[in-house]
Every structure is written in structure tokens, then in C-alpha cells.
């Protein structure tokens, strides 16, 4: 097994000094080709943790390292910068409304990787084809694309940075079942073909179960359970996990009373 690319050790994140921390003692380790799910309800801290994993938020305590270097030391132009990319929940908000699909991806190629103009367009077309975007859609702006097509463009743009790992925060929750299937299949294929590591943040346990090998369950900022996805979901050891899975009314009452 390859060495982990992304490692978080006992990370605590506070938005304000006097407020309760959004994340407490969060640890995770992800290598290329690995898939880890983070599940929890709103307010569990999973999205905050995700943002810290891609270096958008600096932890108050603990460290997050990319290829051994803490995020706080990584500069914009450093090679570590591109190795972890994020895919957001709302692809419409994540895309520049004035850029066509091709330009969105080409821009990432030239800014992050220094690929010159005409070549960037060509590579963008290849990337968009590899994520299954219809060739007729590459010249369209986000408004003219369907939700599933937009998320493909966002994924292609992340791939333009040639990452080892993508952190995807609810990438399919704004999509219909059939568009969701396309995006999940795409992520699974990218993992198999390119060895892409995936951190999938989701409230949807079925989605996480389908695509990940390992899972962390978060509640009120803390990881309350972790382990192989199949084991955690078929025999949860924490009552809150059981509640999420809708297993056991007794456990549900217990977790609620905590």
C-alpha cells in the first residue's frame, strides 16, 4: 500500500475562541486510490473538517499534512497545492457563469499547471471527454448544462490539477437519482483507472456505503466511530451510528438522551 498523501492528526477547529469547536480531535489518513467516507448530520462538523483537509481553513490545534508538509507552509505555487482538490456540493455555484465548460477546465490547466493556451483547450476537451461530458456540451456555459453535466465539469476541472486526492462535499446531493448514479460511477472509475483517492462527505449513508472502503462517523464535531465501511454499517458499535442507520429504536433513544 502506498504512503498516505493526506494526513490529519488530532485536529481541532474553532471558528471563534469562545464558541464550542466545530471539530475536535479529527484524524484521518488517505493514500492515493483509497476511498474514505465522512458521514454525519448537519452541524456534525463534517463540512468544516473537509474544508480544513483541502487547506481552506487552518486548524486551531493539530496539523494537516500533504505529502508530509503542513498546509500552512504550502504556498500557492508549490507542487503540494494541487495534490488535494475539492469538489463542492453545488456545481452551479462552483463554476464561473461566464465561462464555457472548455474554458473552465482550460483555465485550471494554464493557471495551475502552466499549460499554454491552445494546448490547454485541447487537453480540456480530452478531460471533459474522459468524465463523459457530451462533446456538444463543451461550448456551453453552466446555465445551459444539466446538474449532472455541471458536476462533471467541476470534476474535470479538479482533475486538470492532476490531484492524488479529491475531497468531495456532498457531490450528488443536488442531483436526481439518475444523475447521481452517473457521478458516482465516474468517481469509482477515476479511482480504478487513475488511482485517485477520494474523501466523500455525505449525509447519505447509501451513497457512502456504495463507494467507500473506510468510513468516519461524526457527531457534534467528534469522530464517534470509524472503520471499514461494510463492518461499520452492518454492525455499528456506536449507538449514534445505529440511529443514523435507523437500526434500533432503543439505541436511538439512548443517543438522543446523551
Amino acid at each position: 500500500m502506498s504512503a498516505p498523501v493526506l494526513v490529519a492528526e488530532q485536529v481541532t477547529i474553532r471558528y471563534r475562541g469562545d464558541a464550542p469547536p466545530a471539530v475536535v480531535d479529527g484524524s484521518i489518513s488517505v493514500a492515493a486510490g483509497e476511498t474514505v467516507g465522512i458521514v454525519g448530520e448537519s452541524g456534525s462538523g463534517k463540512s468544516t473538517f473537509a474544508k480544513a483537509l483541502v487547506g481552506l481553513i487552518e486548524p486551531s490545534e493539530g496539523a494537516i499534512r500533504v505529502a508530509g508538509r503542513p498546509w500552512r507552509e504550502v504556498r500557492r505555487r508549490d507542487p503540494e497545492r494541487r495534490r488535494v482538490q475539492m469538489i463542492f456540493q453545488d456545481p452551479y455555484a462552483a463554476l464561473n457563469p461566464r465561462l464555457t465548460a472548455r474554458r473552465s477546465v482550460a483555465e485550471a490547466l494554464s493557471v495551475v499547471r502552466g499549460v499554454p493556451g491552445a494546448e490547454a483547450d485541447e487537453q480540456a476537451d480530452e478531460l471533459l471527454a474522459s468524465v463523459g461530458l457530451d462533446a456538444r456540451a463543451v461550448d456551453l456555459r453552466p446555465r445551459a448544462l444539466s446538474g449532472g453535466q455541471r458536476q462533471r465539469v467541476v470534476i474535470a476541472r479538479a482533475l486538470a490539477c492532476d490531484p492524488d486526492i479529491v475531497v468531495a462535499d456532498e457531490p450528488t446531493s443536488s442531483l436526481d437519482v439518475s444523475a447521481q448514479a452517473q457521478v458516482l460511477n465516474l468517481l469509482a472509475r477515476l479511482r480504478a483507472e487513475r488511482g485517485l483517492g477520494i474523501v466523500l462527505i455525505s449525509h447519505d449513508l447509501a451513497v457512502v456505503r456504495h463507494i467507500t472502503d473506510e468510513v468516519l462517523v461524526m457527531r457534534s464535531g467528534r469522530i464517534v466511530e470509524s472503520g471499514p465501511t461494510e463492518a461499520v454499517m452492518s454492525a455499528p458499535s456506536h449507538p449514534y451510528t445505529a440511529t443514523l442507520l435507523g437500526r434500533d429504536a432503543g439505541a436511538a433513544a439512548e443517543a438522543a438522551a446523551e
Partner: protein
Amino acid sequence: MTDAPVLAAERLAVSIRGMELVSRVDVEVGAGQCLAIAGESGSGKTVTCRSFVGLLGRLGGEVSGGRLLLGGEDVSRDDERAWRSRRGRAVALVPQASLASLNPVVRVGSQMVETIRALGGARAARGRALELLEQVRLDDPERVFRSYPHQLSGGMRQRVMIALSIAGRPRLLVADEPTTALDVTVQRQILALLRDLQRASGMALVFVTHDLSVVREIADRVAVMYAGETIETGPVADVLQRPLHPYTRALLAADPTTAPRGRPLSEVPGKPADPRSWPAGCRFQPRCEHAREECAAPAPLRSFGGSRAAACHRVEQIGEGR
């Protein structure tokens, strides 16, 4: 007419500003039953449920074909005035969970009292409001009564919305994705609440959702919609375990809650049908792997026994199953 279903739609068509968004809906729901209407965005499920509570006028829409029957009475052509006297009493709507459903500057109690008075219960409106808050299992009805909407959680607000919707003791409650924005554990509680209220009062419940796991949890029967038509109807267990229509099968195979793990999810080729130019014949046919020549002709719902029906020419050739 005591045997008439609480709600029946017969080849119901609905147009919004001249565009036919719903072309053929055939459903029926009796007292004490729960019918789920399932479909993806653009299938017409929301417009259909708005027509059940007479809210088409506000969307610039109307029933443009077929019939809508409430307790056996044809209400297809009823105007806003007729609906206004019926809404909240005979029929009521639980909207999607959102902060916008309640007036943010008025305390919950005042909003409830206003609703109860409008329904003709001027006396003891406060007591009735507290009773309703208790019925939707809010722990401290007095406190909720005095609260402003933003002081309540999303789940509590949705309970208040449900309390308001049942204030007039409707015979038909229509819930439009009422749990979509809520967390899983809260969602499950709200589903259980709706189911219990429905069983206790014997009202009919129509539940609109895109989520098949929710269908399984709450409904007795399900109607699957595609491109403005009900394409399969039947008891939940039958439809979800042994679907007849290729679109129902495709949906189930694309859904990670029902699809086999570790294998790619099935993808429906092509794009959802566009109401500006519905496909001729069977509307699913351009995307259907089983399509043959006969599918160029319209495919109405056909009965398959056991109160099941599907709108597909080739059910016999394909066989049932997943």
C-alpha cells in the same frame, strides 16, 4: 357515494401558462391509505400535487384534461373561490421544509390561532393550538406556542407546519417532499409522525418524493411518474421488488440504497424528456433499452392484476423483476 375514494385522478392533464407539464395521471387514494408519488425533477410530481389542493391558479395553471375527483365529486373545473372554502378543511398541504413557510415576525401561537379562527374555530383557539402542537409530538407546546419560527429547529418548524395542516381535520393531506431538507434522524421521526397521524385520523395521505427509501418507509401504494405521466402504480412492496416498467427498474438500479454494492450503478442513457417537445408515443422510449417498433404508439397504463398497472407495451416480453 360513501365508497368513492378520497381522491381520484383520471387521465389528469395540467397545463401551466399553456405548456402541458402533466399529461396523464391516474391515481386513487382511499381513507386511511398513503399513496407516494415518486419521480425525478421535471416528472411533473409537484405540479400534480398542487392540482390536488387547488393551487394551480397561483402558478398560472389549470386542469387541461381528464378529471380530478374528491370524494367522488368532480372538482376539475372549480375556481379559486370553491377551492378556498375547501383548502385547510377537506384538503390540506404540507409544503417542503423551509424557514419561509412560517411568517418570521409572528409568534408560532399567533399564526396557529389565526389559522384556527379562519377555519371557523373562534372559541378556544388557543387550547386547540396547544392540542395540535401536542399531537405533532412537540415536547413543550407552551414554549413552542410562544416562540418565533427562527427559535425552532428545522424539524420542529416542520412539525408546526404539520400541526397547521391538520388543524381543519382534512380528509386528504398532501405532503410535497416534506422531509427533503431535514437530517436523516429528524426525517425518520417526521415520517413516523405523518404515518401515525394518518392512521389515527383515517385521512388519506399523498406523499410526493424523489427518494425511494422514503417511499418504502411510509406508503402503501406508489405511483411512479416520468415525463408528466404515471408510468407504474401498485403496492409498494410489489413495485419496488418486482418493477414492471423499464423506467422503474432503471431508477431502482441507479439508486445506491437498492442497487448491488461494488458494481457500477445503472445509468439511464440520454436526457430526461422536455415538456416543450414531449417524445411521440411512449415517452420513455427514446431512452429505453427495450424499445421496439410498437413503442412509437402511446403507452397508456395497463392493468396487470393485484392492483398493479404499468404504461409499457412490452411488459409481457420483458417480464417482471429487477
